[in-house]
């Protein structure tokens, strides 16, 4: 069902845990459909110095969180903002159709953590929108 990359990140998640005194923390998701993702960012000099995640969700949700932390680490805030769910999926060699929404969660969690950082520091990051409440729904396959 999952690619080797997904399984690798699922079984050896990178950057799992918390950061004390993080510069920004973002929690997204909706317990109702099973997925909650939290990203901690340590930002220094506009660079993501360190990152951690915690996730309550399926294998794809765990793997996307893990790879997303790798993708943003060391990047500038602006570049971190450009880590899309597509980039996350590509980095994992793809996800099953029914699991695409889990990768959206990673994108949103990063954005939420960046938003928190911006709020705390009273700065504006271009192109960053405030996190939405319910960020996704499981899309049902239509039967044409």
């Amino acid at each position, binding site marked *: 069902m999952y690619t080797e990359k997904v399984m690798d990140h699922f079984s050896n998640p990178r950057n799992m845990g918390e950061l004390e005194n993080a510069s920004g923390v973002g929690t997204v998701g909706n*317990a109702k459909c099973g997925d909650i993702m939290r990203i901690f960012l340590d930002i220094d000099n506009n660079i993501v110095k360190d990152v951690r995640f*915690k996730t309550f969700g399926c294998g794809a949700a765990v793997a996307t969180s893990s790879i997303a932390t790798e993708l943003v680490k060391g990047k500038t805030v602006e570049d971190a903002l450009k880590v899309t769910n597509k980039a996350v999926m590509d980095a994992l060699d793809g996800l099953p159709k029914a699991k695409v929404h889990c990768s959206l969660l990673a994108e949103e969690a990063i954005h939420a953590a960046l938003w928190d950082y911006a709020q705390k520091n009273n700065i504006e990051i271009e192109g960053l929108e405030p996190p939405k409440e319910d960020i996704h729904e499981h899309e049902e396959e239509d039967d044409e």
Partner: protein
Amino acid sequence: MDQAIYFDYAATTPTKKEVVDEMLPYFTTNFGNPSSVYSIANKSREAVLTAREQIAKAIHAKDDEIFFTSGGTEADNWAIKGVAENYQSKGKHIITSKIEHHAVLHTCEYLEKQGYEVTYLEVDEDGLISVEALKNAIREDTILITIMYANNEIGTIQPIKEIGQIAKENGVLFHTDAVQAIGTEAIDVKEYNIDLLSMSAHKLYGPKGIGALYIKKGTKMKAYIHGGTQERRRRAGTENVPAIVGFGKAIKLAYNNREDNNKKLITLRDKLISEILDKVPYSRLNGHQTKRLANNVNISFEFIEGESLLIMLDMKGICASSGSACTSGSLDPSHVLMAIGLPHEKAHGSLRITLGDRNTEEDVDYLLEVLPDIVKRLRDMSPLYEDFIKKS
């Protein structure tokens, strides 16, 4: 199945070797169409008769009350839509429960769109319906009560005899989806006043793609699948002879050894339940403690999500199942776990272990060895657990 330990017998069972051996001649040698005139088709005809007898005997029915279908799902569809269609002049009200299999629930929902009314009975925290509530739900225009024998997720066994009694007293037909009960429970359709009962072979070490509907003599039931004159004109289509033979053999084996098998299953089941609850904090048993299928364990672990749990177990070579939304292919976690009152997050973190003939005490010990660590690892990863620890 390699070296993996299979703990998902409620999803499907391997077909027993003896069953496959019994089926084999009907593929290549005695392959004749039972409807044919020539004598070599006698073997197919007789094989179908024998299987019908074996199945009838297992549930104390008569041979001509057994009708083969392509599985439990078709049997459920036929039973419910059949009563709806053939009894609509009497009324259009059906009573069922909130924890039925989707084969029943989605069929009922379909009928609602066709102008039928359906009452979905609540269940208590153990998954039992209330017979009082059932009595109160019966109306002048009620034509059918369809309540499952035993639940596929939490293993709770309903008070079938009382339900049958109530149905009889009120002149309402009673259908029960016995797909999970058959093979381990002693079922007597006459004593329990069951009018219609659904079965599926692949849950009792028979082949997939074959099931049956018991239809009590005298019930008005026309064909749901139209065509040839097979199954006394009630179910068209060339008989699936090898699968029918396998179904017969499997049900016979199951009932010949039922008590011994159950004893073994119950021992393993109870060990699993007590030790998991003991070893893993913030866990609870789902389903009734004693009114429970011999092979069913269903436990919720707070703060973790079921699919991740299943994948980690899989990496340890253990096959199990969950009521998590992430595995259900639909928007919500298991409707059964919701109906017994679990909040969403707890329903997500459920683990179903269903035991079967290949399981040993060593398997159970191995599961007990690896499970607590896996739960711990997932909790360490869980933002919900983090919040909980910080709050407390």
